[in-house]
């Protein structure tokens, strides 16, 4: 029998909850995104392509994506390390560290932006040290990278932590009784168990970093082709009131976001099949 649209149920509140859900979803999310797609459609695929297919736009999209990728990879490694340390070890200040991991999540992006800039500018605490060895951090791609690492930090750590908590000691003990060194056990037994969660966190960090604006805009140099991020391009087009061009770049970014969302879902499906849960 074909499944009906909605099962009949004695539960109350179907009309109200469905009404509120669908209305607010449409008003706040679907209609605005629809307006963006509509604008793009009226601009036409040819127009969109013409706007996006310029060196400056490609450079900005590639810059955002490339630096986000590197930042997410750094977060992947550091996040797994962090999660391991927080779950497996006991040391003074562990609770504090655990709470600190969530700070990039809770801290507003503009605050992160100006504080990172103050820190890494040539006049800042870290920036001045770097300046002495001739390494410019703020207003270069390095600055953007650091801001993106900051922003994506909690994602991998938080998705991997529960998995580490649930690893059964028997598996590690079995590996040890079979003669594996601790390093071997870590690499070939534990790490694969963490991989699906870590990859999910990686993709989440990547998705967050690609669209990030507030943390990056202060520390980026905003030089086209070099340190100009994609969201800034949209804002520049809006300030010139070029709605079509802004919509075109916005749609390009939306496509990237959707692709990443799809990748996250696929990873979770794959890992559910492999391990049973993610």
């Amino acid at each position, binding site marked *: 029998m074909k499944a009906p649209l909605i099962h009949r149920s004695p539960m109350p509140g179907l009309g109200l909850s469905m009404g509120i859900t669908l209305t607010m979803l449409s008003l706040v999310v679907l209609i605005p995104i629809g307006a963006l797609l509509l604008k793009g459609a009226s601009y036409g695929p040819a127009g969109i392509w013409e706007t996006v297919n310029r060196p400056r736009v490609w450079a900005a999209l590639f810059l955002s994506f490339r630096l986000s990728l590197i930042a997410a990879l750094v977060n992947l490694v550091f996040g797994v390390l962090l999660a391991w340390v927080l779950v497996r070890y006991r040391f003074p200040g562990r609770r504090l560290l655990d709470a600190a991991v969530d700070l990039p999540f809770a801290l507003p992006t503009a605050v992160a932006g*100006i*504080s990172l800039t103050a820190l890494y500018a040539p006049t800042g605490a870290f920036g001045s040290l770097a300046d002495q060895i001739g390494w410019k951090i703020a207003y270069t791609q390095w600055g953007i990278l650091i801001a993106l690492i900051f922003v994506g930090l909690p994602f991998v750590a938080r998705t991997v932590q529960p998995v580490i908590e649930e690893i059964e000691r028997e598996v590690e003990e079995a590996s040890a009784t079979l003669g594996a060194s601790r390093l071997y*056990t870590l690499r070939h037994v534990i790490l694969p168990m963490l991989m699906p969660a870590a990859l999910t966190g990686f993709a989440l960090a990547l*998705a967050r970093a690609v669209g990030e604006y507030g943390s990056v805009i202060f520390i980026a140099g905003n030089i086209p082709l070099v340190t100009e991020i994609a969201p800034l391009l949209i804002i520049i087009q809006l300030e010139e009131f070029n709605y079509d061009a802004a919509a075109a770049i916005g749609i390009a*970014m939306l496509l990237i*976001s959707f692709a990443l969302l799809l990748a996250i879902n696929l990873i979770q499906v794959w890992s559910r099949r492999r391990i049973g849960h993610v």
Partner: protein
Amino acid sequence: MSDATFRPATEETPLARRLLIALAVLGLGLLVLAPLVVVFVEALRQGVGEALASLTHRDAWAAIRLTLTIAAISVPLNAIFGVAAAWFITKFDFRGKAVLITLIDLPFSVSPVVAGLCIVLTFGANTAIGGWLVGQGYPIVFAMPGIILATMFVTFPFVARELIPVMIEQGRTEEEAALTLGAGGWRVFWTVTLPNIRWALLYGVLLCNARAMGEFGAVAVVSGKIRGQTATIPTTIEMLYQEYLSVAAFTLAAVLALLALVTLLLKTLLELRHADQLAATHRH
């Protein structure tokens, strides 16, 4: 072999352990704690008095009031949505649940600037809806309604995401039992469901609020940056920063950083005391 040198096979060497801990602490300290410290150092650069005085400055105070107002409107609305959506998704069976959940999660993967752009393209003065509203004297973009909509877009999924896993795990049996005992719909909700989900709800509202007050990218696009009218705390921070008023900018930033710390504190408390009722500790 004496006890002092005994090490279980499932643990790393003490050296390795210390190294990893040091790496974690160093990395986190440099990356996360240092910026936090800088905010307060810069805010207090000219002394506590100067910092507090800059808060009473007209622009700063107006920004704080505006941000609080926006949070007071958008967070409850998103909470209502979150509860309604969670109820709809978890208490009923229907086709397309996965699609609905994905749509609700959509704002998470969209850049805040794109979110602002969407609002401008929907309600801007050059659109049909927006043009008519401006003519009536109710502008959306460059005014508070636009900022509220942009904030709601960006914080949309927070409450729903916290409630749905918890409500799924809690199942429907309690509500069904209440129904069989003769309780009406609202009574079931208030006396059975809400007490079960209140900590998850609070957790979600907490995260939603933190994000709503700190939203920058989306608001930067839709507000006219009119000091006192549409300049929220984050955009005011940017403006003050550009006007050589770095103490004032960092003081406002410190206010938001304190809010973030309070949020983290409450979050940790909730996780410690009510871990069984929170999605975060069940999420894999």
